[in-house]
């Protein structure tokens, strides 16, 4: 698979706050790339940098093999994005909004085509109504129609299910699957809900406090037999060096605060333990998390998330 988004060392500093720090990831063509993290983790800031709403303090974004810094307009012609909320002109109708954004994207599009776009997101019957009469779900769908109006290759949706009722969430999910499977689009979708991402993503990135926690194939990450192990030692630098030289290198996920994260089959934990002793690594603790969900809850601890997963 060809990587169409390459992010390296992306950092954003706002005065005293580092919103995103040294973030690197890549998105392959055809991926539904789930971008997970709690509110304030840096998801929206990262996505804003991907569409040049925010200038990175450091790092590089390459999309379709071109640097965003130097090929902004060329890249954005092939990108459709709804960042944060689908805010459109409330005093205009859905049809007028769609036409306006199509013109802004440099697309000459027929009325029939515009109506078919609205039909695709279930808004054809409300095409002439002003947006101020729309529900949150309808606005979200209109936002997606706007993101798609110029037939982009890459679609970026920031928390597309926010504020939606269960039916609205299901509609968005089906739309994402349709875009991915039928229209072969590449999507980046952010969410603070693991359950949402789990149902649509082919690859997943979890960030917290602006940094990467874990990245990998969704099928593997969501595999219930797999476990995340948090390793704490007296000397994490030494431990990491030793692990990178060993056969456990492939299992290493990330270093977070005072812990090293290792992802492996539960049955391999005793073997890991023996290896750590053999490598003369002084272990303080070795804590297995039951699943990615368990781990996600732990790193993104907060009432909101606990409530979410109790659904």
């Amino acid at each position, binding site marked *: 698979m060809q990587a169409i988004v390459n992010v390296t060392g992306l950092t954003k500093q706002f005065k005293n706050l580092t919103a995103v720090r040294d973030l690197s990831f890549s998105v392959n063509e055809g991926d539904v790339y789930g971008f997970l993290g709690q509110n304030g983790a840096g998801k929206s800031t990262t996505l*804003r940098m991907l569409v040049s709403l925010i200038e990175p303090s450091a790092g590089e974004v390459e999309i379709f093999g071109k640097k965003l810094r130097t090929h902004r307009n060329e890249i954005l012609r092939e990108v459709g994005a709804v*960042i*944060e909320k689908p805010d459109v002109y409330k*005093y205009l109708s859905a049809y007028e909004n769609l036409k306006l954004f199509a013109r802004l994207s440099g697309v000459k599009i027929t009325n029939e085509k515009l109506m078919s776009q609205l039909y695709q997101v279930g808004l054809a019957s409300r095409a002439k109504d002003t947006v101020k009469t729309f529900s949150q779900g309808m606005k979200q769908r209109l936002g997606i129609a706007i993101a798609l109006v110029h037939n982009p290759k890459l679609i970026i949706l920031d928390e597309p299910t926010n504020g939606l009722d269960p039916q609205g969430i299901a509609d968005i999910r089906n739309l994402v699957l349709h875009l991915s499977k039928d229209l072969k689009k590449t999507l980046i979708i952010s969410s603070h809900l693991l359950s949402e991402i789990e149902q649509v993503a082919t690859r997943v990135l979890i960030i917290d406090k602006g940094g990467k926690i874990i990245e990998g194939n969704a099928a593997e990450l969501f595999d219930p037999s797999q476990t995340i192990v948090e390793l704490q030692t007296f000397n994490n630098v030494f431990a990491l060096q030793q692990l990178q030289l060993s056969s456990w290198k492939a299992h290493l996920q990330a270093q977070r605060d005072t812990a090293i994260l290792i992802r492996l089959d539960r049955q391999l934990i005793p073997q890991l333990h023996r290896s750590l002793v053999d490598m003369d690594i002084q272990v303080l603790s070795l804590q297995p998390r039951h699943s990615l969900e368990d781990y996600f809850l732990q790193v993104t601890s907060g009432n909101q998330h606990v409530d979410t997963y109790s659904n």
Partner: protein
Amino acid sequence: MWTLIQIELFKIFRRPRTYIAFAAITGLIGIIQFGLKLDGDSYVDFMMRDINSSITVEGKILNGYQVCYIVLQILLVHVPLLIALVAADMISGEANMGTLRMMLTRPISRTKFLLAKFMATVAYTLMLLVWLAILALFVNMLLFGTDDLFLLKSQYVVLLKKDDIFWRYLWAFGFAALAMTTVAALGFLFSLFAENSIGHIVATMSVIIFFTILSTLNIPVFNKIKPFLFTTHMIGWKEFFDIRVNDANEAIIGSIQNPQKILHSALVLVLHIAGFVTASIVIFRRKDILS
């Protein structure tokens, strides 16, 4: 670029707020016309009370040209507020609605986007002044007829012949458009700094009021900065109604007393516009869109 300007104009004229200015001008001029039509003679008597004994004016003092001058004197002080209503909302309003975010994810350069918005603001300003001209000049010419224009200045009087006035108004409105574009450019610059557009409207007006007070204060210490304040030059339209006289103290038809002063004022205003727009572009190109 043309598409962007069209889009911006479409948005401006689909917003109800846009028509407040047109309605306000219509209402204010309507009230002045109504008052003067009803009791114009009393107004003229009041205006002439100090010089009635020394000057005898033949003809109709209260004519369309006179009323237009009265309207311009009153309204051109307040029109900046109406311009600021739209100009100071151009970016901050979009940021507030969240649409700025949606717009800037499209493949358009920020400079073009900003220039298109400014052009649309200028177009709105011009339309407002055209509307003002229609009501203040043409409607008054119809309602009050035309005659010579008698103007009382602070130290002298000016009498312009009936056939020597209309072109002066056209130039005066042109100059007023330049002055109002300066206000629009200032409001536009302020609209970049936050999402609350009311704050920018107030800030724009505060600067204009502050500078206007400085421009009119007769305190020597301020005289050095007065030539650099755009508000000093905004009233340059009045210069079109000062006429040159020959050695026999007769007015020279078709002349302007001090055309250099008008040119100088126009240049200062153009430089202010260029400065405000350039500053807007520099700031906006680097601005992180966090709304």
